[in-house]
C-alpha cells in the first residue's frame, strides 16, 4: 500500500513537471528568437531612418511583450517546483545544478527584466542610441538565460565536472560543467529553434497581412528578413539537431536505442521511417514498417557502417552495472516524439525554402494558397520543439540524473499525493485560462494594422506592460 502511494505521488509530480515545463516552453522559443528580430528591426530603423522598420519594431515588439510576461510568470513556477516537488533531487544536485540557476538569475534575469523595462518605457527618455542598446541587452539576457538553463539540463543528461560524495553530487570543475559537449550542442540547438520559431511567426503573420492585401509595403520587408534568417537557420538547425543525436549516442546509447525502437544491436542499422507495433518488450517486431537502410548508422554514429546498440543489450548491461530494474525509457513515446520533432522541423524548413523561392521570383504575394500555408505553419515549430523536449526528458528515464539518481527516488517525501493533486488542479486551471486569454490577445494584436507612427490612433503601440 505504501508502495502504491509512493509511486503515484512521483507520477503526479512528473505530470505536473511535464505539463508546467512544456507550457513554459511554449513561450521561451519565441522570446529567444523574437528579441533579436526586434533588435535587428530597430537597428535598421536607427541606421536608415526608414519609418516602416520603426512600425515593424513596435508591431512585433508588442507580440514579444505579451509573450514574455507569461514566460516570466510560468518561469517562477519552474524554479520553485524543484524544491516543492523534488526535494531529494534538489538536495542531491544543488551543489552542481544550483550554480547555473543562481548564475542565470544574477547574470541573465536581471539584465533581461531591467532592460526590457527600459526599452518599453524609455522611448522618449533615452537617446535613440541608448534605447537601441536596451533591446540588444534584453536579447543578450534572454540568450544567457537559455545558456545557463541548458548547462543545468545537460548536466542531468551527462553529469560532468562533478563527483558524488556522501550521497550528494558535488561540483569539481565549473569549466567542465560549462563546456559539457552535450550543453554546447543543446544550447545551440535551442537558440536555433528560437530563431526558427520567430522567423516562422514573423513570416506567418506577414503572410496573413499579405493575403488580406493589407500593409503590403510594410510586411514585404518583414517577409524578406524572416526568410533571410529563417531559411539558413532552420537548415543549420536540422544539422545541429542531427549531430546532437550523435552526441546522445555517445553518452546515452539507451535513449537512442529506445527512440529508434531498436531492440537488437545492428551494424549497419536501418532507420525506421514509420512503423506499426514493435514498441514493447513482448512485441519487438513491428507488424509494418518502412525503413531506410544504413541511415540510422549515419544519424547515430556519423558513419554509414556504424554499429548501433540495441535495447536488449543495453538493458542487460545496465542491470549488470546498476542492479536489477527497468532501464528502458518508454519506447513508443520516444520513437514518435523524435519523429514529430524531426518531420515537422524538416517541414518548417521546406515551407520557408519554398517561400524564399517564390519571394525571389517575385510571385509570393500572388500565390494566395501559399500565403495560407505560411499562416498555418505557425504552430509547427512549437509542436516540433515540445516533441523535442519530450524526447530529451522521457528518453532520460528512469534517470533524473543520468546514471546517478533515479526519478522514482527524487521526489519530496513530505509532500502528500493530495497536495500534489491540489497544485496540479490549480496550475491546470490557471494555465488553461492564461492560454486562452493569451491566444486571444496575440491573435488580436497580430491582426491589427500597424498604425502610422505618432498618429492619433497610436493605441496599437501600447505594449503589454503599459497601462
Amino acid at each position: 500500500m505504501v508502495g502504491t502511494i509512493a509511486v503515484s505521488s512521483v507520477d503526479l509530480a512528473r505530470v505536473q513537471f511535464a505539463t508546467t515545463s512544456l507550457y513554459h516552453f511554449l513561450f521561451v522559443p519565441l522570446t529567444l528568437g523574437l528579441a533579436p528580430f526586434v533588435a535587428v528591426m530597430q537597428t535598421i530603423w536607427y541606421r536608415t531612418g526608414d519609418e516602416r522598420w520603426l512600425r515593424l519594431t513596435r508591431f512585433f515588439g508588442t507580440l514579444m511583450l505579451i509573450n514574455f510576461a507569461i514566460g516570466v510568470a510560468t518561469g517562477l513556477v519552474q524554479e520553485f517546483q524543484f524544491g516543492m516537488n523534488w526535494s531529494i533531487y534538489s538536495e542531491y544536485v544543488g551543489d552542481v545544478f544550483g550554480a547555473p540557476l543562481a548564475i542565470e538569475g544574477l547574470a541573465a534575469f536581471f539584465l533581461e527584466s531591467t532592460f526590457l523595462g527600459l526599452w518599453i518605457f524609455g522611448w522618449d527618455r533615452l537617446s535613440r542610441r541608448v534605447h537601441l542598446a536596451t533591446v540588444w541587452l534584453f536579447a543578450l539576457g534572454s540568450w544567457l538565460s537559455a545558456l545557463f538553463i541548458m548547462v543545468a539540463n545537460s548536466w542531468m543528461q551527462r553529469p560532468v565536472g562533478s563527483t558524488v560524495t556522501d550521497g550528494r553530487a558535488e561540483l569539481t570543475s565549473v569549466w567542465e560543467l560549462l563546456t559539457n559537449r552535450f550543453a554546447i550542442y543543446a544550447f545551440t540547438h535551442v537558440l536555433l529553434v528560437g530563431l526558427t520559431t520567430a522567423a516562422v511567426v514573423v513570416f506567418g503573420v506577414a503572410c496573413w497581412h499579405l493575403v488580406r492585401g493589407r500593409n503590403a509595403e510594410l510586411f514585404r520587408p518583414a517577409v524578406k528578413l524572416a526568410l533571410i534568417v529563417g531559411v539558413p537557420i532552420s537548415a543549420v538547425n536540422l544539422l545541429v539537431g542531427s549531430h546532437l543525436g550523435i552526441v546522445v549516442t555517445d553518452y546515452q546509447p539507451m535513449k537512442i536505442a529506445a527512440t529508434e525502437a531498436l531492440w537488437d544491436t545492428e551494424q549497419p542499422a536501418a532507420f525506421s521511417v514509420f512503423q506499426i507495433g514493435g514498441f514493447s518488450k513482448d512485441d519487438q517486431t513491428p507488424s509494418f514498417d518502412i525503413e531506410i537502410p544504413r541511415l540510422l548508422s549515419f544519424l547515430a554514429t556519423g558513419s554509414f557502417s556504424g554499429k548501433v546498440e540495441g535495447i536488449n543489450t543495453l538493458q542487460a548491461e545496465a542491470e549488470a552495472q546498476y542492479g536489477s530494474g527497468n532501464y528502458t525509457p518508454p519506447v513508443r513515446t520516444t520513437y514518435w516524439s523524435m519523429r514529430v520533432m524531426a518531420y515537422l522541423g524538416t517541414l518548417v524548413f521546406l515551407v520557408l525554402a519554398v517561400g524564399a523561392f517564390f519571394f525571389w521570383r517575385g510571385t509570393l504575394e500572388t500565390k494566395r494558397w501559399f500565403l495560407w500555408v505560411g499562416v498555418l505553419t505557425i504552430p509547427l515549430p512549437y509542436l516540433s520543439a515540445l516533441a523535442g523536449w519530450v524526447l530529451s526528458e522521457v528518453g532520460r528515464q528512469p534517470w533524473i540524473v543520468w546514471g546517478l539518481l533515479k526519478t522514482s527516488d527524487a521526489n519530496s517525501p513530505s509532500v502528500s499525493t493530495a497536495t500534489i493533486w491540489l497544485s496540479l488542479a490549480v496550475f491546470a486551471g490557471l494555465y488553461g485560462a492564461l492560454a486562452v486569454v493569451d491566444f486571444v490577445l496575440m491573435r488580436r494584436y497580430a491582426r491589427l494594422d500597424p498604425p502610422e507612427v505618432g498618429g492619433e490612433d497610436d493605441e496599437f503601440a501600447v505594449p503589454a506592460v503599459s497601462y
Partner: protein
Amino acid sequence: MDLETFWFVLIAILWAGYFVLEGFDFGVGMLLPFLPRGEEDRRTMLGTIGPVWDGNEVWLVVAGGATFAAFPAWYATMFSGFYVALLLVLVFLIIRVVSFEWRAKSESDGWRSVWTWANTVGSAGAALVWGVGLSNLVYGVPINSDGDFAGDLADLFSPYTVAAGIAVVLLFAFHGATFLTLRTAGELRQRAEGAARRLSIPAALVAAAFLVWTVGVAMDRNDKDIFPPALPAALAIAALVLAVVFLFMGRTGRAFAMTALGTIAAVATLFTSLYPRVMVSSPDFENSLTVDGAASSHYALAVMTVVAVIFVPIVLLYQGWTYYVFRRRLGLDETAAETSDAGAHA
C-alpha cells in the same frame, strides 16, 4: 567571514532587496482600488511602477536560486515544507503579472475592475504569505531527523507568524504610499500623502511589535542572546519612527528613505535572529538546519562567490540607473503628456 556565512548574508541581502523594491510595488498594488479618483489616476499609479516591477521581482528569483545553489538542504526542506504557502505565492504573483499585462487590453469597466482587484489581491496576498513564511524560519516548524519537513499547513500559523504577515502587509502599504508621494503630482500626490499618514502609525506600531516579538522568539526558540538581533530591530524601529516624523513634517523623500531603511533592517532582524541556523526545528530543536550543515561544497561556493562579486555591483548600477531614468513625477501637469507617452511610445 567564511563562504557559508558570506552566502547566508548574501541571501539575506537578496531578500532585503526584494522586500525594499517589490515592497513598494506591492504597496502601490494594494492601494490601487482605494486611492485613485478615476481611471486616469489608476493608470498613473500603475505607471509609477511599470518600468521597474519586473526587475524588482528578479530579486526573488535570485534569492530562490541562490538558496538552491548555496544551501540545497535548506532550499529542499523549505520549499517542500512550505508547499501550499508557496503555491499560494505563485498564484498571487501570476495573477499580478497578468493583471499588469491585461488590464489595459479592454476599455470595459468590468474587465478593468477585475484586474485592478487581481493586482491588489496578488500584492497583499503575496506580502502576507512572505511574512508568514519567512517568520516561520525563526519560529520553527517540525523537522524530522532526516531534515525533512514533518508538519502540515496548520503548523505554519501561530499568533507570531500571523502577526508577521500583517506587519509585512502594513509596512509595504506604508512604503508604497510614501513611494507614490515621490512619483506622482497634484491631487493624486496629496491623496497618496494622506494615505501614507493614515498608514504610518499603525504600520510602525505593528512592525515595531513584530520586531520586538522576533527578538523574543529568537531568544526563546532559537537559543539566541538579545544581541545581536536587538541591534537591527532597534534600527528598524528608529527608522520607522523617523519615517512617521518626516512624513508629518512633509519631508516625503526622507520618509521614503526611512521606510526603505526600516524594511531592510526588519529583514536583517529576521536573518540575524536565524543565524547560525537557516531553519529552526520545533519541537525537536536538534533537527534544526544550520548554515554549515545545509551548505554546498567549498568549491561550489567559491565559484559562485566570484560570479556574485562581479555581477551584484553591475546589477546594482544598472538597476539604479533605471530609477534615475524614470525619476520624473507622473501626474497632473504632465498627465496628458505622460500617459500618452506611456501609451504611444511604450
